[in-house]
């Protein structure tokens, strides 16, 4: 007799559970809200869409609008704004479509793959925003550097502190780079913590299940 057969017999003979839950309690449980990770991915995902969209609107409506106008960047900003609006709608549609396709009655592998796909939509939205933001900043910097007195226009109070304009340009570029790097660093850390904690187990299990089929 195989070692496991003995244990299997013990398994089959195990008693009905002592913790038997009554119908009343089962009924009460059905009225409670789920706290599954799918629900959290949905809530956090929606919050991210709102956050990024608000950030976009705030940036496009700041006091710098006058400077953008002076730098002839208003048309570019308007195009970016509408392009971004379309992208957000497409991402939201994909996010909603992926979310609604998650079905607990699917097989385990397919369920996990759909959860990961839903999460990835939000991740791509974040990448789009970061890459888009950095690109815009680079374009913005190129235009400023190519505009006579561009930096002085942007930082009139700072201009007097530097001996010559090349020092001002260097200071401007260094400060911009530091800000971009810090922003990306904070975001990456935040995302790793947030989704790392939320999806570590799921990713591990999915890899484990998918390993053989690859």
């Amino acid at each position: 007799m195989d070692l496991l057969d003995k244990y299997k017999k013990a398994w089959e003979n195990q008693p009905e559970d002592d913790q038997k839950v009554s119908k009343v309690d089962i009924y009460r449980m059905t009225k409670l809200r789920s706290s599954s990770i799918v629900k959290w991915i949905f809530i956090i995902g929606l919050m991210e869409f709102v956050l990024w969209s608000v950030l976009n609107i705030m940036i496009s409506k700041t006091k710098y609008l006058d400077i953008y106008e002076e730098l002839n960047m208003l048309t570019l900003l308007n195009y970016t704004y509408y392009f971004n609006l379309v992208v957000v709608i497409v991402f939201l549609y994909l996010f909603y479509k992926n979310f609604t396709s998650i079905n607990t009655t699917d097989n385990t592998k397919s369920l996990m793959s759909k959860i990961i796909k839903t999460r990835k939509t939000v991740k791509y939205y974040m990448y789009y925003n970061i890459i888009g933001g950095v690109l815009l900043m680079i374009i913005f910097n190129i235009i400023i550097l190519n505009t006579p007195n561009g930096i002085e226009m942007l930082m009139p109070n700072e201009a007097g502190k530097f001996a010559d304009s090349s020092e001002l340009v260097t200071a401007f570029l260094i400060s911009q780079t530091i800000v971009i790097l810090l922003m990306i660093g904070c975001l990456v850390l935040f995302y790793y913590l947030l989704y790392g904690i939320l999806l570590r187990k799921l990713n591990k299990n999915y890899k484990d299940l998918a390993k053989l089929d690859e």
Partner: protein
Amino acid sequence: MSDSLEDKFLNDFESNQNIVHKICRIYTTNSNDHNDLFQEITIQVWKNYSKFRGDAKFSTWMYRVALNTAISLYRKSTKSVKTQDISDIAYKIKSVDYDDTEEKQLKALYNAIQKLNDIDKALVFLYLEDKSYKDISETLGISEVNARVKMNRAKDKLKKVLNP
């Protein structure tokens, strides 16, 4: 949802809750987490109950939803401090001539399964529940051949833990 669907669910779930308890016992290590997972599985089974067509046995359908919840949807609400309570659960073996050996084997088996990873737990659980490879492959979404390969590995791991 209609009352009759709710009643039917309550009857089906109550009479099959033992499956859920067994799953909770292998995927959690203390009674708080056990209750949390039990609750989440109840919610998921109820939420999807209208999709249960009745062409399969309710218990077979429930294995899938319950295992999916334990493996993919459930997150422990608290950092799991291993206040292992397998030994606290009073296992009363139902055979007429009560045999304490089986009780010990059952405790050892639960302790050993808890040391496996989530997928191996599901495989071993389905094996212990006497599910066919076809059922196992359909539940987990892998081919039958891969189910066999993975099952043999999981069983080997379990044997090593049971008999180091």
